[in-house]
């Protein structure tokens, strides 16, 4: 199994060596991690190299790549690495209650761009880096799903 490279929430990680997975239900990914005489319930979801492991109540993003997948991904990244415009996406689903920028605005990194209300709370979506707004695709009153593109920064 040493042919897998693992990243947990973006950081390289060594798998616990003394642990094995017993799968109880392949449909839902429910299983148990066995270490000596103790068992920890887990859920492993996702497919291919992108998995989400639910452990002690926490959903943990794990990337498990074979060497082949890793080389392919690096090649892809190299091809896409010119510094182009970036999309600002919704970090949670909800109702857009305010849009704090219009096309042409120069914004600082961390500036509030969109306010999304979900479950009684207002949440700010901020600029990931400084730049100029080149497109605004949402307006107040509209609902958005997680990951929906809302603005583009150049």
């Amino acid at each position, binding site marked *: *199994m040493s042919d*897998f490279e*693992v990243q*947990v*929430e973006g*950081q390289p*990680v*060594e*798998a*616990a060596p003394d*642990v*094995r*997975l*017993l*799968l*109880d*239900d*392949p*449909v*839902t*990914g*429910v*299983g148990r*991690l066995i270490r000596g005489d103790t068992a*920890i*319930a*887990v*859920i*492993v*979801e996702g*497919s*291919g190299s992108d*998995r989400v*492991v*639910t*452990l*002690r*109540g*926490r*959903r*943990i993003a*794990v990337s*498990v790549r074979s060497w082949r997948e890793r080389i392919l991904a690096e090649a892809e990244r190299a091809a896409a690495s010119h510094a182009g415009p970036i999309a600002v996406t919704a*970090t*949670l*689903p*909800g*109702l857009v209650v305010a849009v704090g920028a219009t096309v042409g605005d120069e914004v600082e990194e961390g500036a509030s761009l969109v306010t999304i209300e*979900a*479950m*009684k*709370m207002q*949440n700010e979506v901020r600029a990931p880096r400084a730049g100029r707004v080149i497109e605004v695709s949402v307006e107040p009153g509209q*609902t958005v799903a*997680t990951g929906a593109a809302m603005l583009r920064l150049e």
Partner: protein
Amino acid sequence: MSLHTDRPRPPFERLLIANRGEIAVRVIRACRELGISPIAVHSDADVDAIHVRQADASQRIGPPSPAESYLSIEAILEAAHRSGAQAIHPGYGFLSENADFARAVADAGLTFVGPPAETLASLGNKLAARRGAESAGVPIVPGTTVAVDDDLDGVAAIGFPLMLKAAAGGGGRGMRRVDAEDGLGEALVAARREAVSAFGDGTVYAERLLAPARHVEVQLLGDRHGNLAVLGERDCSVQRRHQKLVEETPSPAVDLETRAALFDSARRVAGTVDFHNAATVEFLLDAERRHYFLEMNTRLQVEHGVTEMATGVDIVAWQIRVAAGDTLPDAILQPEPRGHAIEVRLYAEDPYADFRPSAGHLTVWRLPDGPGVRVDAGVEADTVLRSEYDPLLAKLMVHAEDRPAAVDRLRRALDETLIGGVQTDAGFLRWLVDRPEFIEGAYDTGFIAEHWPAGQRLGPEEASLAAAAAIGMRAMEPATGGPSQPAAAEGSAWGRTARLEARRG
């Protein structure tokens, strides 16, 4: 004396439940046990929801937006009319404390399972309720008993930190903390603007911020004949931004003397209004066990279940019965609470990202059962969670001989809980039951802010275990993708897959 046998027939033939989620399911169960036909309502988002499936029938009340469905007085009344219901149970939240709704229900000739509209109107103004409590001889949090005007010196005299609160707010909404005099003017302007925008009423009052303090509330049940039952207190101090996460009864902070004082104050506050229904009087308790009135809610509380477990009284069934005019029996007027009960709330929230709401598809939904465990759930496996509604998925309650046994039972129950597809607060709750402050009952309303960092980092042990789980899964799968018979299958899980596939085929 008996809950059921002294009625020749059910209190109502049909009852409409103007709510959704776990509380709608709870009321449906009470209806079933009382012989009442429960009628649900649903927005277009809920056509497939669990409360719709469990009811005898369900009426569509509008599009997903709460304002056009669960908050629409007109739609709810139309649904009641169409279904032939004689009574409406509002649950909690939504229209449960809306005086206009209570009045409209009464005007339509139906029974509102709740207090008279006037009571809701008077208690809905927190400032008026504060004055009422003070005049009844009940201690209130030091502060103003009239609306704050522009006399900032008068407000500053209360002392800092202080809270500015909207008179029309409540339930943790419409509050703003002010730490020093120089921020007061700006904060007051902002608080008024927020109050106007959220409640249509800019009246604001000021209270000293009590800290450390515990949030302790008293459960009441009143009938139409002047009988008032006091069913014990609940400690709801494990909060985050005034949102309760854990509730227990009895309170670890309340001794016999404090309990007597709390119950006396709760009775006095209840005496200031015309009241029949389940109700809760909320207090803050300071480090010297002095209590201060906060507000009174004349509706069912999310956390009513722990009181039901400790007293053996079915609060929802009696809420419906007193609405029909029944008299509370002696066994309820002199309750005998037993043991210790704790509730934790399972929310679709991410405790590792400041409790941000989460959404998605619940793939795994495994809840505990067995001795002393109660689950009130509003979802099931394969439910798709939407962001329009409250993120409360289920309430997990335990009851045991005493508090240490209840904490041990809660830990066991959380260990049996397994939820997939959506981030919940289950991991936070599991962390909590191992904290010495919680085990000793020595926590206050600032506990989470102090001990749970907004962005709890993943520890190296969890990371290496998660890595092992993901690798273990990939290693079990054939290189080409989807599961099939591996060379050395563990257990008979793959056999089960084959059976599942065969059944579907």
